[in-house]
């Protein structure tokens, strides 16, 4: 299968991007300044991320759709206000995660942002679960552009007046060159920021406007170091079909009311795990030295027992040191527990730590 290109592909090329194939797309991993500089620029200024490879699934429907989706997601969708977003999961019966996603209530139904590698499968699963009762569009005609970092609100408000009034995890329709674009205040870097759903033919012009106002294109490499410092899960690493949201320490994303009522896919397992606890759990891991613990690095306790595994690890430019996340047996998951990481045959000391590594700065309570 030929790799796909996003609407911004040529702009990436002109901006000297290095490309990598990701989920069937040619995506920029970094530009000429490199991952560390791009990471820091996002933390201090404003970075533009082409995330058009991600799925934008529109599902159209009324009250019945809300009830049907509540049978799938562990969310209180009946009380989800118009233009408000929630982080959630598409799970199997064992509460294993098919995908993690952001679902937003729009007037005509819902907009769900899906991971690129999962979107086709998610579409199939959801079509089946909803018995093809509703119109579903996995929209390939729209690009998705994230703007992340402390200067993002100011920059974007220069182009789209009014976006400063959005709260974190809310959105609305705005206009750019007389076309409707949907903007949410959200993102995946731990910074204040926005995700802009915009038709493909406007994507390049819109991105160039952002660049003109001082934002810079940032690659997937920095997106990974940013989300890791922010303690956010990456599907295929911290989340997959063999891990549940409770094990992933994402209890906060599961509606308490819905757990009491049950009847969503995976609710039996979720209810049981919330009551009885879990055997393994996702934690932050901070190596003591400079050594970097990559995915699949084994974690040992002080008695040399194998107690877990790293799922993501890199160098955190804002932390200025190595950072990692992994799954560890529950009894060793307390903060400051000393553990050892086996890297290239040697054991390196590390500590279990709280997440995030880098404090989030989301904007709430604007109005």
């Amino acid at each position, binding site marked *: 299968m030929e790799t796909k290109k996003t609407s911004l592909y040529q702009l990436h090329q002109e901006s000297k991007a290095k490309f990598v194939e990701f989920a069937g797309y040619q995506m920029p991993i970094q530009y000429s300044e490199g*991952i560390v*500089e791009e990471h820091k620029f996002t933390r201090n200024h404003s970075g533009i991320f082409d995330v058009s490879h991600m799925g934008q699934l529109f599902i159209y429907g009324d009250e019945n759709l809300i009830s049907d989706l509540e049978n799938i997601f562990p969310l209180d969708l009946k009380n989800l206000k118009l233009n408000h977003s929630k982080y959630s999961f598409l799970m199997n019966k064992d509460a294993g995660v098919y995908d993690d996603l952001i679902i937003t209530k729009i007037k005509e139904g819902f907009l769900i942002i899906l991971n690129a590698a999962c979107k086709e499968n998610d579409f199939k699963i959801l079509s089946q679960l909803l018995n093809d009762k509703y119109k579903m569009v996995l929209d390939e005609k729209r690009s998705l552009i994230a703007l992340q970092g402390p200067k993002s609100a100011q920059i974007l408000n220069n182009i789209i007046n009014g976006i400063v009034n959005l709260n974190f995890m809310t959105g609305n329709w705005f206009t750019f060159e007389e076309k409707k674009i949907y903007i949410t205040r959200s993102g995946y870097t731990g910074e204040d920021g926005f995700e802009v759903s915009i038709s493909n033919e406007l994507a390049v012009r819109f991105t160039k406007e952002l660049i003109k106002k001082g934002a810079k294109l940032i690659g997937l490499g920095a997106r990974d170091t940013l989300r890791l410092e922010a303690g956010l899960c990456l599907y295929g690493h911290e989340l997959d079909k063999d891990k549940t949201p409770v094990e992933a320490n994402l209890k906060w994303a599961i509606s308490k009311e819905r757990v009491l009522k049950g009847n969503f896919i995976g609710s039996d397992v979720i209810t049981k795990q919330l009551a009885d606890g879990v055997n393994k759990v996702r934690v932050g891991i901070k190596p003591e030295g*400079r050594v970097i613990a990559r995915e699949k690095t084994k974690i040992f306790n002080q008695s040399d027992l194998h107690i877990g595994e790293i799922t993501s690890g890199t160098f955190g430019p804002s932390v200025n040191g190595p950072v990692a996340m992994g799954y560890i047996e529950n009894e060793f998951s307390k903060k400051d527990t000393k553990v050892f990481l086996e890297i290239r045959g040697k054991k390196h000391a590390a500590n279990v730590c709280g997440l995030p590594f880098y404090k989030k700065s989301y904007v709430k309570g604007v109005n």
Partner: protein
Amino acid sequence: MWTAILQKKLCERSKLMSAVKYSKEHEWIKLEGDVATIGITKHATEMLGDIVFAELPEKGSSVEKDGTAGVVESTKAASDVYTPVSGEVVDTNQAIVDDPSKINEDPEGSAWFFKLKMKDQSEIDSLMNKEEYDKFAKETAS
């Protein structure tokens, strides 16, 4: 006359010995006396991206031609550093361990990795000169 020829020969020999050679694994090597200084090439650092971790061989240890003699890690991935010749490690560059970003800044100068007392100086003969390496690097770059 005879001394002039000898001097010229010596001069050629020292020129030859101090010339930098390159390996297919993107290491450079500079021989002075029987001590070789080894590092990674600028081309290698450009392929790796920002280097954030470096591990060097232990002083006093022996390393074998084409064997692993260290590790560098970028934000993306870990890569082994190989030694293009055999010998005993007589010195290592702690400065690049303390601040790995130096490797990106000056890979073929102050950011050398380790020095070896060579076992067999003829091992250097099969390595590439600058021109050959540049051509090789260009051809293998993806």
